[in-house]
């Protein structure tokens, strides 16, 4: 029997929380909590695919690249992203294996390094907007812009930061391998940090580029292309609200895609928080997806799976 696929996206800050220093012990503890939640989805009978963000972690690697730049040539952003797929994948994988073993479910967990093709004529490349890495003093920023051709922007008195494009994900190079492993009974960690961005050159060869693919956008694409039956989006509230913050506020258990689209158009979901989550949900449903679950990590870890969160379904 083929198991249903659930794809779950977690933020990089699920492992490295704000105000934490990112010590290994902290990240391990956070990963342990995350793994409890992930194991619940596996215990429900789903073949689980996990996409994780990597913002804080890649930020730390970039600080190290700069600190070592006098002695060791810094790696490009695509390679730094690949590093986080290795180390974050390992940490999540190890904790999930431990949790599954604890529950008596000794099924494999795999991390697949994932490259994602973007279009080199994506408008993001003309106008990079996504800040990454450390703040630099002006003299260093000028040097980096001159010698490396980086695009940098001054950030309200705090220093200069590199800005990179955030192009749209088009194709997941390792899609077949991910699908195969899910079908074979493994949980799979894939598309970490939104994937390693590559373009296809004139000869169709893959070439790494310095860019950041939005993790939620990639998750929606991966969920749709895997034919995942369930796409789980974690956020800061247990359920989606209509008229949020007003006297008429109500929590929603279930929404049809067209209803969700209508509310989105009415401005019910603020940009920068619930808005992008609903957009991801709709992108997945439009790509052939069936059901989206939006909730918090805590609720998913503890509440009744039948009633937890808000479900958005195809019309």
């Amino acid at each position, binding site marked *: 029997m083929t198991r249903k696929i659930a794809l779950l996206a977690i933020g990089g800050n699920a492992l490295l929380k704000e105000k934490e220093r990112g010590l290994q012990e902290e990240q391990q503890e956070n990963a342990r909590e995350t793994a409890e939640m992930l194991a619940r989805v596996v215990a429900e009978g789903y073949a689980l695919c996990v996409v994780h963000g990597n913002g804080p972690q890649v930020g730390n690697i970039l600080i190290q690249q700069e600190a070592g730049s*006098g002695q060791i040539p810094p790696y490009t952003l*695509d390679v730094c992203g*690949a*590093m*986080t797929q290795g180390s974050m994948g390992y940490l999540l994988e190890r904790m999930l*294996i431990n949790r599954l073993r604890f529950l008596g479910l000794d099924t494999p967990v795999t991390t*697949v390094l994932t490259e994602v093709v973007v279009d080199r004529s994506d408008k993001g490349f003309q106008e990079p907007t996504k800040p990454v890495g450390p703040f630099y003093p002006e003299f260093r920023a000028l040097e980096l812009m001159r010698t490396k051709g980086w695009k940098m922007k001054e950030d309200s008195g705090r220093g200069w930061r590199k800005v990179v494009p955030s192009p749209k994900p088009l194709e997941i190079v390792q899609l077949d391998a991910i699908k195969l*492993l899910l079908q074979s009974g493994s949980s799979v960690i894939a598309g970490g940090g939104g994937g390693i961005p590559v373009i296809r050159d004139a000869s169709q060869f*893959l070439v*790494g580029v310095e860019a950041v693919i939005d993790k939620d956008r990639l998750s929606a694409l991966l969920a749709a292309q895997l034919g995942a039956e369930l796409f789980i989006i974690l956020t800061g509230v247990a359920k989606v609200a209509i008229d949020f913050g007003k006297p008429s506020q109500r929590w929603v258990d279930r929404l049809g895609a067209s209803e969700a689209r209508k509310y989105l158009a009415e401005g019910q979901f603020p940009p920068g928080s619930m808005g992008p989550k609903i957009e991801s949900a709709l992108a997945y449903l439009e790509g052939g997806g069936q059901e989206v679950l939006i909730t918090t990590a805590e609720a998913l870890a503890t509440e009744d799976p039948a009633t937890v969160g808000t479900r958005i379904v195809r019309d």
Partner: protein
Amino acid sequence: MTRTVVIAIGGNSLISDNDHTQVSDQYLAAVETCGHIATMLAAEELRLVVTHGNGPQVGFILRRSELAAPELHMVPLDSCVADTQGALGYHLQCALHNEFKRRGMGRVAATVVTQVLVDAKDPAFLQPNKPIGSFMNEAQAQVHREKDGWALVEDAGRGWRRVVASPAPKQVLELPVVKTLLDAGVVVIACGGGGIAVVEDEAGQISGASAVIDKDLASSLLAQQLGADLLVISTAVEKVCLDFGKPTQRSLDRITLAEAKQYIAEGHFKPGSMLPKIQAVVDFLEQGGKAAIVTDPAHLGAALAGLGGTHIVP
């Protein structure tokens, strides 16, 4: 019957020398190595696993981590190895993809982050002897010994250096996954840097170990567990030599397992260099492996056709 082959490539095949450490240089080195691998695959349809070393790359990560220490915590060793599996696996899978495309071959490559179980009671943990990271002075060494519990050794005249254990690999945790991918025809990149060393407690819970595993021994173990037909170890020389570096030096075309063990006993192979490679081959053949080859990247294609390299048979 399609042959199953494990090929281990040296970390040095991914960095040509100390003057070529830019990302672009490292990628070009991967492209060259992957060209030779594709040549092998064009000649014979193999179930192929590629493993790789990571010595220079782990050194870079540790050095950067030391230089950023005023701002950030140090990167633990298991995490460093996982980082290199990410970075090098990406370069290899991208280079292989392009090489397959260029030659019109319908193969695909995927990298599996790999944990390798070691025994927490391995005697290597009592005598850490594998130097990693930079040299430091005595005062710094003292701080790390007390604060971080590091084992350190003094290298005459050059200062102090951290040493870690290099235990024997016992089990490749991702073995079933590697098999699934091989069965589907995927070229699998696995066991980077010898794998991330982990230990298991009585309850079956695994945790990271501050240790590194020899990549040739890990590759040999993977080949054994896969029931591979052939283990190929790619290194800096075309053939294994006896009396290496002496006027009596002579290269070997074909030797038996018994001869290999005899040459080891006679001290022909340098520890930390050819010795672990021959030991890896011996382990593989003793556990039922049918053949092994030691050669350099440029001779991979020829060696597989029986026309180069050193062949070791039971």
